[in-house]
C-alpha cells in the first residue's frame, strides 16, 4: 500500500461506466423517440423490415434505458461515491481493481449481446425480463462481480459507519439479485424436452402465478432500479454539490426502512381486476398508497436540505437539476398511488396515462439525477471545469419542456381513452370501437413523441458538454470542495 498522503481515489472504472451511460442513453432514448413517432405515424413501422417494427423495438427501448443507460449510471456513481464515503481508494486493492474492470467488460458484453439478440427477435416475452436463459446467467455473473466490488470495498474501509447512500446501493444489489433470480426461473425447452432452439425457454410458473411473480418483479424493478439507487445518488450528490448536510439523517434512515418494507408488497396493483386473488389486489392497492410516506420522506428531506440555500438554484444548474429531480420524484410517487386506487385504476389501467406516469418518473427523476451526478463527477474525474454553464441551462429548460409535453399529453390521452372505453349508450352497448380511440389519440401521440425528441436533443447537449469537458475544458488546479466549477 502506498503512503496515505500520496493516495488518490481511482476513477478508472467510474469513467468506463460513464462512457457506457452516455452510449446506452443515446441508443435507448433514440429508439424511444422512434417508437413514439411510430405510434403517431404508423407507416414508420416499415422503414427497416422486421427490425424496425414497434414490437421489435419496444423491448430494446425499455431494456436499453433500464439495463443500459441506468444500470451503467448506477455503476458509474457507485465506483465514484463508494470510494469517497468509505474513504478508501480502489488503488489500494489490486484485486478490487481487477474485479471492477472485469465487472465493466462482462457488463458491456452482456448488454451488447442483449441489444443484438433483441433485434433478432429472441425474447422470453416477459416484460422487462425478455432476455433468454444464457444471458440471464451472464447477468448473474456480472451482478456477483458488482457484489464482490461493493463488499470488498466495505471490507477495507476507513469510515466505520456506512453513509445512507451505501445502504441504498447495497439494497439495490440485494433487491435486484432476489427479483432477478425468482422471476427468471425458466425451463430451457431444448435441454429438458428436445424442443425449440437451444437458447429458448419457458417460465417455470404458469398462468396467474406467472403474472404475480412477473409483476412482483416488474414493479420492484421500478423500486430497486428506478428509485433506490437514485436515492443513493441524491443523498450524496445534492449535499456535496450544495455544501449542505442532509436535513435530517434520522429521517433518511426511517424512510429507508419504510421504503424497503412497503415497496415489495405493492406489485399487485399491476393486476387489479384480473384473475389474481382479491386480497392480493387489495394489498397491492393499500401498500401503494402507504408508499407515499417513505417516498416523500426522502424527497422532502432533500428539499429541506436546501433550506435557506434556495439562491443556489439561480447560480448552479446542477442544483437545479437535482431539485427538479426530487420534485418529479414527489410528483410520480403521488401519481402512482393515485393510479393504484381501485376506482381510479378502473379508468387508468391499460391507458396511456400509465406510460405518462412512468416517464415523469424516469425522465424527470431518474434521467435528471443521473445526468446531474455525472456532471458533478466530471470535474473531479477529469480535473477540468465543466465546459459550458449556458449549454447546461439550455439543456435543462429544453428537457423540462419535453417532460411536461410528454406527461401532460399522456394524461389527456389516457383519461380520454379510459372514458371512451367505458362509455355506453342507453342500452348498455359500447359507444366506441377501439379504432375510434386510436383516431382521437393521434395528436397526443405526436405531441408526446415531440416531447421525447426535445429530451433526446437535451441528452445530445449533455453528451457534447461532457465530451468537451473531458477533452477541451480548462484544467483545474485542485479538486472543488462543493459547487462544481463551470465556464460560462
Amino acid at each position, binding site marked *: 500500500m502506498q503512503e*496515505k498522503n500520496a493516495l488518490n481515489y481511482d476513477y478508472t472504472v467510474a469513467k468506463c461506466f460513464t462512457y457506457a451511460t452516455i452510449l446506452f442513453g443515446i441508443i435507448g432514448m433514440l429508439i424511444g423517440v422512434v417508437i413514439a413517432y411510430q405510434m403517431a405515424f404508423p407507416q414508420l413501422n416499415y422503414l427497416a423490415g422486421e427490425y424496425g417494427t414497434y414490437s421489435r423495438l419496444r423491448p430494446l427501448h425499455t431494456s436499453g434505458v433500464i439495463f443500459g443507460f441506468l444500470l451503467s449510471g448506477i455503476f458509474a456513481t457507485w465506483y465514484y461515491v463508494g*470510494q*469517497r464515503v468509505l474513504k478508501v481508494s480502489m488503488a489500494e486493492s489490486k484485486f478490487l481493481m481487477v474485479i471492477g474492470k472485469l465487472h465493466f467488460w462482462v457488463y458491456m458484453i452482456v448488454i451488447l449481446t442483449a441489444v443484438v439478440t433483441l433485434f433478432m427477435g429472441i425474447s422470453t416475452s416477459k416484460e422487462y425480463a425478455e432476455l433468454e436463459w444464457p444471458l440471464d446467467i451472464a447477468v448473474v455473473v456480472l451482478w456477483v462481480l458488482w457484489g464482490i466490488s461493493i463488499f470488498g470495498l466495505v471490507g477495507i474501509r476507513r*469510515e466505520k*459507519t456506512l*453513509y445512507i447512500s451505501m445502504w441504498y446501493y447495497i439494497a439495490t444489489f440485494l433487491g435486484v439479485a432476489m427479483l432477478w433470480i425468482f422471476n427468471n426461473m425458466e425451463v430451457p425447452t431444448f435441454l429438458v424436452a428436445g424442443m425449440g432452439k437451444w437458447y429458448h425457454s419457458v417460465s417455470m410458473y404458469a398462468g396467474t402465478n406467472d403474472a404475480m411473480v412477473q409483476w412482483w418483479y416488474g414493479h420492484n424493478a421500478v423500486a430497486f432500479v428506478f428509485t433506490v439507487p437514485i436515492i443513493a445518488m441524491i443523498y450524496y450528490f445534492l449535499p456535496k454539490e450544495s455544501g449542505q*448536510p442532509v436535513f435530517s*439523517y434520522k429521517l433518511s434512515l426511517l424512510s429507508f426502512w419504510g421504503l424497503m418494507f412497503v415497496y415489495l408488497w405493492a406489485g399487485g396493483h399491476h393486476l387489479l381486476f384480473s384473475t389474481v386473488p382479491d386480497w392480493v389486489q387489495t394489498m397491492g392497492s393499500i401498500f401503494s398508497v402507504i408508499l407515499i410516506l417513505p417516498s416523500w420522506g426522502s424527497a422532502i428531506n432533500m428539499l429541506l436540505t436546501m433550506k435557506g440555500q434556495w439562491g443556489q438554484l439561480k447560480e448552479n444548474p446542477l442544483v437545479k437539476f437535482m431539485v427538479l429531480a426530487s420534485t418529479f420524484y414527489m410528483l410520480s410517487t403521488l401519481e402512482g398511488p393515485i393510479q393504484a386506487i381501485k376506482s381510479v385504476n378502473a379508468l387508468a389501467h391499460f391507458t396511456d396515462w400509465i406510460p405518462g406516469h412512468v416517464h415523469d418518473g424516469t425522465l424527470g427523476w431518474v434521467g435528471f439525477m443521473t445526468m446531474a451526478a455525472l456532471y458533478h463527477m466530471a470535474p473531479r474525474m477529469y480535473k477540468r471545469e465543466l465546459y459550458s454553464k449556458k449549454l447546461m441551462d439550455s439543456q435543462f429548460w429544453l428537457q423540462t419542456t419535453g417532460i411536461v409535453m410528454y406527461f401532460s399529453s399522456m394524461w389527456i390521452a389516457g383519461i380520454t381513452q379510459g372514458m371512451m372505453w367505458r362509455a355506453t349508450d342507453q342500452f348498455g352497448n359500447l359507444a366506441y370501437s377501439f379504432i375510434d380511440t386510436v383516431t382521437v389519440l393521434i395528436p397526443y401521440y405526436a405531441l408526446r413523441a415531440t416531447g421525447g425528441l426535445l429530451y433526446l436533443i437535451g441528452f445530445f447537449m449533455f453528451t457534447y458538454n461532457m465530451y468537451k469537458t473531458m477533452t477541451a475544458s480548462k484544467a483545474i488546479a485542485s479538486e472543488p470542495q*462543493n459547487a462544481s466549477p463551470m465556464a460560462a
Partner: protein
Amino acid sequence: MSMETIRELQAYGYIFFTVFLAVILYAYIYHLYRAEKVGTRNYEKYADMALRDNIDDVPVEAVPPVNKEKE
C-alpha cells in the same frame, strides 16, 4: 373451512398487522431519538460523511485500529 371463517380470520389478521406495524414504526422513531438523547449515537453527524469525503479527511467515525491490524 367456511368462507365466513376465512373472512373473519382475514379481518383479525388485518387488525393485528396494522397495529403491529404501527408499533414497529413508532418504536423505531422512538429508538432513533432516544439513542441521541442518552448519547449512544449522534445520527446527524453522519451527514458529514458526504461533505468531508476527501481521502485524507479525518473519518467521521474511524474503523478501530485493532481491526485494521487484523486485516
